[in-house]
């Protein structure tokens, strides 16, 4: 990698921004489409419930269905803020 490329990598180009946004968005969309139809609404309801007690961002809650043999697991992962 040349010196020139090194500078380019560090620079926040609009293409870098595009990639970042796409990665986040598509990760969300994949979780939703692979799961049952009620998943987005369930996720929304869970967020509402948690927000009664603590303030959290959208990306701090992960709701996922893990496919198992003969059964599926609903996986809920909530990152609580520090303190």
């Amino acid at each position, binding site marked *: 990698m040349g010196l020139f490329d090194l500078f380019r990598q560090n620079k926040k180009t609009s*293409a870098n921004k*595009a*990639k970042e946004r*796409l990665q986040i968005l598509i990760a969300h*969309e994949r979780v939703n*489409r692979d799961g049952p139809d009620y998943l987005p609404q369930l996720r929304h309801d869970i967020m509402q419930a948690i927000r009664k007690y603590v303030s959290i961002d959208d990306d701090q809650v992960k709701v996922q269905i893990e496919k198992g043999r003969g059964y599926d697991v609903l996986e809920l992962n909530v990152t609580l803020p520090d303190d």
Partner: protein
Amino acid sequence: MSKVIVVTSGKGGVGKTTTSAAFATGLASKGYKTVVIDFDVGLRNLDLIMGVERRVVYDFVNVINGESGLKQSLIKDKRVDNLYILPASQTRDKDALTAKGVESVINELKQEGFEYIVCDSPAGIEKGAFMALYFADEAIVVTNPEVSSVRDSDRILGILQSKSKKAEEGGSVKEHLLITRYSPQRVNDGEMLSVEDILDILAIPLLGVIPESEAVLQASNQGNPVILETKSTAGQAYDDVVSRFLGETIEHRFLDVEKQGFFKRLFG
């Protein structure tokens, strides 16, 4: 053995029809009996890109409805042996394409000895696009280096993986990524997603990269599939795509800014 290949994208105007025409022409040039079907009911365009618009008598929907036979509806290309075109209908009836009808036409094409059946999908994720992909063995997902196109490609991949006949039967449609309208200069300037960026996100095998090229517009003006413009970068890139699809190992070209670009900018 015949293979059904859908050229799809979700987003409109990314180069599906350009690709379908070039790809089918390339396969036929290499000796394979090939048909390219326009699934864009109501917005027929493949006939124009292939330069056969004045020879359309019957269309896909006529065949499905039994108003014409398959053989009399296929247009035989005059430039390339083994190449046939089945035009879309101009009807506004969105339900003209039925799964049963499409399946029977595909089966008849197989019986006629067609080795490759290329399906040019309409944009969107509605009925027409669904019909085009449902019977596919393989899919060429056409993507432009641009956020909305990449996102729509991912959605189409989701549909291929869950709603296609192959998927319903527990198998899978073989996926190929084709990046078109690629501009190495803009990638270099940090204005456009790179091939690597797109591969990171979509994570499917790369079939090829077609550069942005003036030859595409010129070829379409003349009703010539761009792959026949053998001097153009886009034509050559499509030719590589066909060879790669058929199993050859060919390095990707036209990914970097032209060497003489610097001088061109200085003196051009």
